[in-house]
């Protein structure tokens, strides 16, 4: 959905961190992205190929660790793994507003020279 902005921001962070560490090249950028962010990994990759030109990450790969979501069901008093973007309890079908995992959106590390 806002994949372009996310990749742009990740590239900015990666470049400034790489420069600060005296690196001249970024080989890999690792992201952690939760299921409930609704971010589409393919769209990230596409944005990456468009935006990385002319940066230290010109030839870098984007590696995405996809974090499956965990929601809490108040009626059943238990955690469950929702399907897709709808945090619906598989047992009682009640949508959960309590997302315990799956909202992650972070740049984890870089592989540089």
């Amino acid at each position: 959905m806002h994949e372009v902005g996310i990749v742009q921001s990740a590239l900015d962070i990666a470049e400034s961190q790489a420069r600060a560490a005296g690196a001249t090249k970024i080989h890999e950028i690792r992201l952690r992205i939760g299921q409930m962010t609704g971010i589409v990994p393919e769209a990230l990759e596409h944005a990456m190929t468009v935006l990385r030109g002319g940066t230290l990450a010109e030839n870098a790969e984007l590696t995405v660790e996809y974090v499956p979501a965990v929601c809490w069901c108040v009626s059943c008093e238990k955690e469950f793994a929702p399907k897709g973007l709808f945090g619906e309890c598989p047992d009682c079908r009640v949508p959960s507003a309590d997302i315990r995992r799956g909202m992650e959106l972070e740049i984890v590390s870089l592989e540089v020279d």
Partner: protein
Amino acid sequence: MCLECGCGLPGPTRIDGKPADEVSSPLVEGVEAPNHSHTHSHDGYTHSHDHLHDHEHDHPHDHGHDHSHTHRQIDVHQAIFTANDRLAERNRGFFRGMEVFVVNVVSSPGSGKTMLLTKTIEALGEDMHVGVIVGDLETDNDARRLRTTGAPVVQISTGTLCHLDAEMVARAVGGMDLKALDILVIENVGNLVCPSGFDLGEDLRVALLSVTEGEDKPLKYPPLFRFADAVVVSKMDLAVACEFDRDAALDNIRRVNPRADVFEVSAKTGEGMDAWRDYLNRMRTRRGSLTSRP
């Protein structure tokens, strides 16, 4: 410019007819967007040295070609905020300082945003000072309709762009007397996809679903409804004629966004307008009491 959906080439954005970058605003002039990566880069630097040795061993070069040096890993562990997110946070802080409650209204084209806002401003009455920013690709028809209420209206013509962003709003408020306003409503460009990805710095996001659009819109376009605080089911006077399945619609909204406050309204007949207006007043008061806390 909207690489998000590829919906068009960069069009010149205009505010009340003027090129947007010629419009002065305290929120834009002479200030760079705060750069989070800069403030954190020193942590990252130290961090990378701490871990240097481990990682050199973790990632040996075993893929054929010779390098005289090894790859090394820099640990970053930093949340990603887009440039728009940062500008939106600035807007939000500015709006709080001005004590103006900001509402962002999103929907597909023609769901009834302009009519709802016109009637809402009337319903709020003269004691509540409302200003409007309205985004459209072209034409100032909506701005003119909204001006009939007597409220100050700033028009953003986005050219070919399918959504408003935080920077356009920052510029648009440059010419407004925010101190004199209690509520600023922003009518976003009619679009089901892109506006949901752009925080404008609002306090309240409202998504409209008109009964003529079909009950399954929330399932087909989840983000629009998912990131809304309130959903207004609009044009209720047409519900019977459209064989609108109310239960299915409410169910679908709840599936996508169990936390949303839902209102069923007809701007035309006034049905449901009181509850909607009271809600806005309530949310504004609540926001006010949160900000005035030390």
